[in-house]
C-alpha cells in the first residue's frame, strides 16, 4: 500500500494519519520534557498530559467543522488558561461567551426534543459528547456518530503505539 492511495481511500484513514502524526509528536514532546516518572504522582500527571495530548490531536485531526472538536479544543484551552492563572482573561471570556450563547440559543429547541426520546439518555449523551449541551437531538446524534468514529480511530492508534512500545 502506498501512502497516497491509502490516504485518498477514505477520510477516516487520513484522519488516522493526521491523528497519528500529531499524537506521536506530542508524545515525543512529553517524553522529552520530563524524565521518566518513578512516583505515582508523576505517573498520574504524565498520564493526564498524554490523555490531553491525545484528545487535542484527535480534535485537531477531526477538523474544526465539527461541533465536538471545537468544543473539545475550547475545553482544553480553558483548562490550560485556568491553570495559567489569568494570563489572558479576555480570551477566556470570549470562549465562554461563545459557548453560552450557543447554549442559550439551542436550549429552546432542546426542550421540544426532550419529549421525543428519553430525557435522561439524551442528557447523558450530551454529557459524554463534548459540546453536546448546546445541541438539539438531531445534531447531537450526528456529532455522536462522528465522535464515535474518531474515538475508534484514536483507540486503535493508541493501542498500536502501546503495543509497539511494549513489545
Amino acid at each position, binding site marked *: 500500500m502506498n501512502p497516497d492511495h491509502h490516504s485518498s481511500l477514505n477520510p477516516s484513514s487520513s484522519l488516522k494519519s493526521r491523528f497519528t502524526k500529531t499524537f*506521536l509528536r506530542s508524545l515525543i514532546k512529553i517524553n522529552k520534557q520530563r524524565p521518566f516518572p518513578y512516583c505515582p504522582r508523576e505517573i498520574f500527571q504524565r498520564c493526564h498530559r498524554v490523555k490531553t495530548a491525545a484528545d487535542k490531536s484527535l480534535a485537531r485531526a477531526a477538523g474544526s467543522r465539527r461541533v465536538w472538536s471545537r468544543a473539545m479544543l475550547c475545553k482544553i484551552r480553558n483548562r490550560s488558561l485556568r491553570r495559567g492563572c489569568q494570563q489572558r482573561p479576555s480570551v477566556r471570556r470570549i470562549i465562554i461567551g461563545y459557548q453560552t450563547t450557543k447554549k442559550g440559543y439551542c436550549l429552546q429547541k432542546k426542550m421540544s426534543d426532550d419529549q421525543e426520546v428519553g430525557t435522561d439518555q439524551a442528557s447523558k*449523551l450530551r454529557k459524554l459528547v463534548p459540546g453536546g449541551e448546546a445541541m438539539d437531538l438531531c445534531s447531537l446524534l450526528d456529532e455522536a456518530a462522528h465522535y464515535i468514529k474518531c474515538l475508534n480511530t484514536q483507540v486503535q492508534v493508541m493501542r498500536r503505539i502501546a503495543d509497539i512500545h511494549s513489545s
Partner: protein
Amino acid sequence: MGSSGDNNDGLAFQSGGQSVVNCQSSGMGGNPFFASAWDPVVSISQHENFGGSSMLSQSELTNSPYPVVMENQGISTTSHLVHYQSGSSYVELVPKFPSYGSGSFSEMVSSFGLNECGQIANTGCHPNYTTNKEANIERTIANSAESQEDHQLTEEPITGASPDGKKRKRVGESNSSYDPNKNAEGERLKDPSGHSSDVQKEQDEKKPRTEQNSGANLRGKQSAKQAKNNSHSGEAPNENYIHVRARRGQATNSHSLAERVRREKISERMRLLQELVPGCNKITGKAVMLDEIINYVQSLQQQVEFLSMKLATVNPELSNDIEKILSKDILHPRGSNAALMGFVPGMNAHPYSHGIFPASIPVISNANPQFPSVPHTTLDNDLQSLFPNGI
C-alpha cells in the same frame, strides 16, 4: 405562530377585555350567529365532560384545531375532544368566531348566552359540509380582515392574500374538513408559493410533503384516527372520511409535518449509529439504542484513558526517526501486525458487550499476542502483563 394563534384562545381564555380587543382588531363581517351558533352547541355538549365554564369549553373547542395553542394554554383536553371528531365540522368551525362576530362574541364570552343561541345552533348544527360554503364565504371575508393572525380560518390560498407562507400551510392542512376541493386548492396554491415564512427550512421540507400528503390522503384515511403521525393526514380533503384532529400534544399540521421530518431525520441518524456501534443490529427502539450508544462511548473513553495511562508508563524510546517509522507502521500495518489489528475489533466487541469494564481491567488484549482467541483469560493475562510493564 403560537402567539398569534393564541388570539383564539386569548379570546376564550384570558381577560374578556383582551379578547374583545382582539376581536375588534380582526374585524367582522361574517355571521355572528353562524359563528356563535356552534359555540353553544359544543359548549353544551362539552359541559358534561368538562364541567367547566362555557368559556373553558369554548377555548377547548378552539383548541381542537390548534394543539399548539392548547399546549400553550396548558389544556389537556384533546382526549375529550376525540369524542367529537365525528362532529368535526362544528369543532372546526368554532374557531372562526373570533374573527367574525367580535361584538357578538364578546357578548358570548362575557355572558355565555347559550340559551339565546341554542335555537340557532340547532338549526345550523346538522350539515357538516353544506355549511362549508358559508364557511368559505366567511373565510374570504376574514381573509381580507385578518392578514396577520396565524389563523386556521383565513384561507388565504383561495384569495391569495396571505403574506405568510407558513400560515398558508396551516390553513391548507387544518382546513381539511371544511371543503375538500378548496383545501386541495389551498394545498396546491401553497406549494409553489410558500416562501416567505420564518422557518424556511421547514417549509422547504413541508412543500414536498404536503404534495405527498395531499396525494396520499386523498386515498382515504380511515386509520387516521389511530395514528399519531397521521395528524398531518387530516389535511387532505375528502368528504367521505371523518377528519381527525391532532391528538393530544400534537401541534397543528404544519408543526406536525415539521416534527415528522425531524423524527425521520433522527431515525436516520439512529440507523447510522447502529452501524457504528457493534452488536446493535437487532436492536429496535430509540431508548435501547441510545443506551447502547452511551455505553459504547463511555467504554471508548475509558479505553482512551487506560491507553494513555499505559503510554505514560512506557519507556520513552522515541526519537524523530522512530516517530516516522512508527507512523508508517501504524498507518500501514504489516502482515503479522495486521492480524493483531484484525483481532482487535473482535476484542473490542467482547469487553464492550459484557458491559462497561472498570479502567483497571485492561481491555488491551493484543499486548499479549500469546492469547489471541480467548477473551476472558486474556484479561487476566493482560493484568499480569501490565504490571511488569512499568508500574
